[in-house]
């Protein structure tokens, strides 16, 4: 390498620099995201106080330019957390059961069918999952079980189930990777002590892969928090402080989508509020992703 770099030709150096520029462009994207969010968010906080934004329990942007509205982000955080938790309640058990099945029980042929099927599920456009939630999950699943007068047309439960189905493949595939990287010797030792497959799975493989499962859940939660279309379509657009899953709520992402469909003009309070919401979303998801990546790195070190 050192000899090669010394005798490199000019043309080659130009190419390497161009390739370097491509790699650095990704850093520029991050800088761009942070700059765009910060500039307009700061503009927003100049007119509307940061304290009110972080502690206010009413999100009611004013009409038109949005002056005189109330901009408390807590109802949106509340809605976002409801969808995130609901999605985990749906996606975590199904995802982990799927992962155990794929990693410990399924024969190669069943695996060969199931894994692509999960990839297809992960690849369904979110707007179509939203349609499914609105046209099937609410009217044909939730309402027959819990009653028409109890379940609103737009409700957090349908959004949670829809997002839960979207994150199921993420939890299943990362957890399965973690389980498959548990050394065979651990399983063999447990079998040698007379354990059954169930005992090996639950008492050896799952505990050994626990950090990987945790990482997958955090990553999945971050995806659920960032999901936009399914919750905009199925969970409604009424920001409120509630824990009732059968009523309409609004998430951070849905609020952004709704404001944009309403075409807020550039420079208005309403427009700047978009970027304050985007910044909030960016910070939450970034923190989750960093925690998840850290856990993944740690569990890789254990067995490699």
């Amino acid at each position, binding site marked *: 390498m050192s000899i*090669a770099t010394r005798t*490199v030709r000019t043309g*080659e150096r130009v190419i*390497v620099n161009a*390739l*370097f520029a*491509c790699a650095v*462009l*990704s*850093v520029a*994207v*991050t800088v761009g*995201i942070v700059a*765009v*969010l910060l*500039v*307009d968010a700061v503009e927003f906080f100049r007119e509307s106080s940061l304290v009110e934004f972080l502690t206010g329990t009413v999100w009611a942007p004013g009409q038109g330019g949005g002056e005189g509205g109330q901009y408390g982000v807590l109802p949106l955080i509340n809605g976002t957390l409801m969808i995130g938790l609901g999605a985990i309640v749906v996606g975590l*058990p*199904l995802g*982990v*059961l*799927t992962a155990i*099945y794929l990693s410990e029980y399924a024969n190669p042929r069943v695996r060969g069918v*199931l894994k692509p*099927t*999960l990839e297809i599920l992960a*690849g369904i*456009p*979110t*707007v*179509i*999952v*939203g*349609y*499914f939630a*609105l*046209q099937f999950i609410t009217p044909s699943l939730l309402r027959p079980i819990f009653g028409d007068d109890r379940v609103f047309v737009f409700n957090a439960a349908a959004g949670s189930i829809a997002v839960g*189905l979207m994150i*199921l*493949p993420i939890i299943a595939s990362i957890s399965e990777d973690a389980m498959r990287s548990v050394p065979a010797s651990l399983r063999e030792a447990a079998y040698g002590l007379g354990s*059954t*497959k*169930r005992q090996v*799975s*639950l008492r050896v493989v799952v505990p050994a892969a626990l950090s990987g499962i945790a990482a997958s859940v955090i*990553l999945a939660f971050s995806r659920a928090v*960032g999901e*936009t*279309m399914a919750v*905009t*379509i199925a969970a409604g657009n009424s920001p409120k402080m509630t824990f009732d899953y059968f009523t309409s709520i609004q998430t951070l*992402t849905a609020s952004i*989508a709704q404001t*944009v469909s309403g075409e807020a003009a550039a420079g208005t309070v309403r427009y700047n509020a*978009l970027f304050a919401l*985007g910044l909030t979303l960016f910070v939450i*998801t*970034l923190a989750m*992703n*960093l925690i998840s990546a850290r856990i993944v790195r740690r569990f890789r070190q254990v067995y490699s």
Partner: protein
Amino acid sequence: MTASSSVEVLAPSRLRRGATRSGLKILTDAAFSVLLFVGTIVGVIALATLIWTIVDDGWARLMADPVAFMTSYVSRLPARAGIKAALVGSAYLMALTALFCFPVGVGAAIYLEEFAPRNRVTNFVEANIANLAGVPSVVYGLLGLGIFARFLRMGPSLLAGALTLAVMSLPVIIVAARESIRAVPDGIRLGAFALGATRWQTVRRQVLPAAMPGTLTGTILALSRAIGETAPLLVIGLPIVIFSLPNDLRDPVSALPLLIFDWTSRPQAAFAEAAAAASIVLLALLLAMNAVAIFLRNRYTIRW
């Protein structure tokens, strides 16, 4: 251990108790296998139900006159509404997105795999790409709105939409390209060096061609995700109601997911049917792209 105690262990009563315990164990094991299978199959059933719902709702509308549906513009009358502008818009967006992000993504991957020194800058770029992959798509929309649409004055145009989708797909393509470049064995590189090739000649003539099938597969999968995205395009403000096809990069375009979102949000049942019909077209498009990707992977990937 004394003789008497070992006799006691073998006493018939103990044996029988052992036998019943293992009988219970067999039952629990069987129940657990069933639970795993049920948990796994729920995801498959959900996917089947989703596809069935879409096809059941939209098939009649699509098949009533498929040509008219695909060659008509939108309309206030659901029976006359078609997807022409959205379908063509999605095709243009996809082609331009590929044009923008493929060279940059592959360039960044080549740099990181073949040229990057192991230093802090490289580590930072890598961590940055990993984080970009976790940024919610709606935040990319805000980036597109703030930088491409407003700051660079592109407005809600084909160019702004394609650039936004390209930036969003970039981390996915970089990761896919890096994996296929890494899969090329070092023997190939060393052989080329031994024949006097420079680093770039080695990459250009040996490594890249060998890594191309995997890279193309990853790119197509990233594009199929981009083409199903709604939120970023919605945030940039791409129009839904539009009665012309783009002649210029600066012309506004629509996209299939946007149209599906718009029709899904309308109260009339006839628009829901149209949304389902458009969803069938979008799913068929994605299925075709995935089929091409799988074909490329199986047909051209070199196993070392």
